[in-house]
């Protein structure tokens, strides 16, 4: 690795802000008693664990564990259990992202709880100080703790944010600057924790004796290209400090589906944005169906060019929860256009819009329909899906479907759901004006 990378010489800096155990943190804002206690949040239908507080992680509760498998630990350690409350999480996500965006306007929302920023323009304020201010402000305004990683490339920023979470001494902000600092961070990061590597690739690379991000960054580029193709080569270059991923390039993870586009020109009218957003939503719906997944959260964002005159500049986005986990274009398009109406303001030259789906889960929870094929049946299940898609293409959507889709009586289970504190007047926080019972009035 050269001692100064091109990005470093250009003094460009990316940040990634990531909410700590986001769903758990949302529950804690309205129920501070949960701070310091182990908490878990369950997937749709109270199926399995999808978020854990640090205390729950320490108890060994793994991500994705089915609820019935951890009843024991939950009982023994008094773990607080919550059904997922997407109306709450979606609203809190909007608040966090808007607060961050107000302090660093060049923002790319990456998922419900993560966003990238280009902080290059904040050099003179001191990047670490500015990021620390962002973190403090979000915590004060919304109650949500975030970790911020700062580095020359997005991949390194992501790695820095992960490291910031692990190291309590850095106060939630970690900046990777200088070759030594970067090298140390790479050496202490497991390969599979690198953004864009994933399990498949890390197994493949383990055969080559590659264990850490540092090992990977030091591999001969030709070998990386041969083993992992051009995408792998990009990840390696990013780790070496070469910027390959610009701010708006979105490569969705499995948990997020994002469809967005920059327009070639300024778009002012709500109608044109509606059209764009509707097409994004329906594209996202077919992606979902291809994966056999459903989404519970939908975000719409619109923004002007960061180079627009400051009076004309605008960034807006809102996250909402869908009435139920959905994968059909109808539901998603309707929701997206309602969200757009809510955030649209006329008079701005919009250059970009997008739809982001979150809280993505398998449509058929384990134990239903596809277990038909047993463990080795994945290929067959896929073949069946394809046949169904083709039949539906030819004879119209819904001509052939899984019996499970017809059980209209099926209602999601959510026994442990908290109130929708921020989106329903009936369910807002109830606060006693007095902490202790009043003395009995004398005249009764």
């Amino acid at each position, binding site marked *: 690795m050269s001692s100064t990378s091109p990005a470093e010489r250009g003094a460009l800096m990316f940040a990634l802000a990531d909410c700590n155990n986001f769903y758990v943190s949302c529950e804690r804002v309205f129920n501070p008693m949960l701070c310091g206690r182990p908490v878990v949040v369950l997937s749709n239908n109270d199926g399995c664990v999808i978020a854990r507080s640090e205390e729950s992680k320490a108890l060994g509760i793994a991500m994705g564990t089915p609820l019935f498998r951890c009843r024991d630990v939950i009982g023994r350690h008094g773990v607080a259990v919550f059904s997922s409350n997407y109306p709450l999480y979606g609203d809190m996500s909007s608040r966090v992202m*808007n607060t961050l965006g107000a302090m660093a306007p060049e923002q790319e929302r990456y998922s419900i709880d993560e966003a990238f920023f280009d902080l290059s323009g904040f050099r003179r304020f001191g990047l670490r100080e500015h990021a620390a201010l962002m973190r403090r402000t979000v915590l004060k*305004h919304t109650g949500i703790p975030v970790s911020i990683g700062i580095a020359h490339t997005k991949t390194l920023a992501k790695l820095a944010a992960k490291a910031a979470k692990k190291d309590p001494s850095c106060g939630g902000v970690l900046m990777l600057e200088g070759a030594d600092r970067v090298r140390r961070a790479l050496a202490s990061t497991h390969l599979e924790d690198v953004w864009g590597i994933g399990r498949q690739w890390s197994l493949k690379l383990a055969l080559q004796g590659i264990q850490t991000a540092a090992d990977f960054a030091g591999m001969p580029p030709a070998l990386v290209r041969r083993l992992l193709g051009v995408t792998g080569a990009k990840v390696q270059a990013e780790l070496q400090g070469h910027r390959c991923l610009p701010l708006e390039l979105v490569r969705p993870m499995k948990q997020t589906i994002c469809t967005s586009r920059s327009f070639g020109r300024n778009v002012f009218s709500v109608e044109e944005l509606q059209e764009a957003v509707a097409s994004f939503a329906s594209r996202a719906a077919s992606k979902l169906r291809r994966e056999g997944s459903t989404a519970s959260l939908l975000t719409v964002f619109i923004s002007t060019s960061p180079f627009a005159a400051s009076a004309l500049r605008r960034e807006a986005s809102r996250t909402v929860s869908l009435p139920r986990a959905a994968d059909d274009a109808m539901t998603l398009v309707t929701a997206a256009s309602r969200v757009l109406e809510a955030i649209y303001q006329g008079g701005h030259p919009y250059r970009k819009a997008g739809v982001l789906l979150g809280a993505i889960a398998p449509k058929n929870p384990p134990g239903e329909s596809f277990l038909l094929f047993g463990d080795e049946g994945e290929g067959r299940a896929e073949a069946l899906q394809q046949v169904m898609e083709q039949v539906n293409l030819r004879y119209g959507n819904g001509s052939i479907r899984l019996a499970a889709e017809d059980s209209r009586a099926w209602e999601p289970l959510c026994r442990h759901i908290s109130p929708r504190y921020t989106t329903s007047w009936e369910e807002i926080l109830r606060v006693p*004006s007095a902490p202790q019972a009043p003395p009995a009035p004398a005249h009764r």
Partner: protein
Amino acid sequence: MRLSSIHHTLFLDFYRADLSVPLPLPLAETAVSAGFPSPAEDHLEVTLDLNRALVRHPDATFYARVKGSSMIEAGIAEGDILVIDRSLDAKEGDIALCFLDGEFTVKRIAMDDGVLMLMPENSAYSPIRIGEESDFQVWGIVTYVIHKSR
């Protein structure tokens, strides 16, 4: 109706730019001379938006419903809705939603000889001293109280 001015950092001003500028329209004093359309009606229909009047920092504002009457003399009654702004810094005299030893409570913040006090607004209740050993945080500052009067 205006909130008292509070300290803004440079960056929160970005945030305010996000709110659209209120239109400087003449007030509807012409409305009393009913029948004649006012010339002001030619250009824009505008409604008064309570959100804009009561919520200065939308992303930091939350609502809560009051149980109990310990703040009745401050005009906060059972069932009222509080508008709570988390972005404000607490100062003496503020009414705040506090979290104290495992419970939420709404109280006025006071200082007594350098000691933080939570003051009820109801003579049947006594003030609470916040000592070193208390588990205490100010959750947010109450900016408005919405009270139903019929």
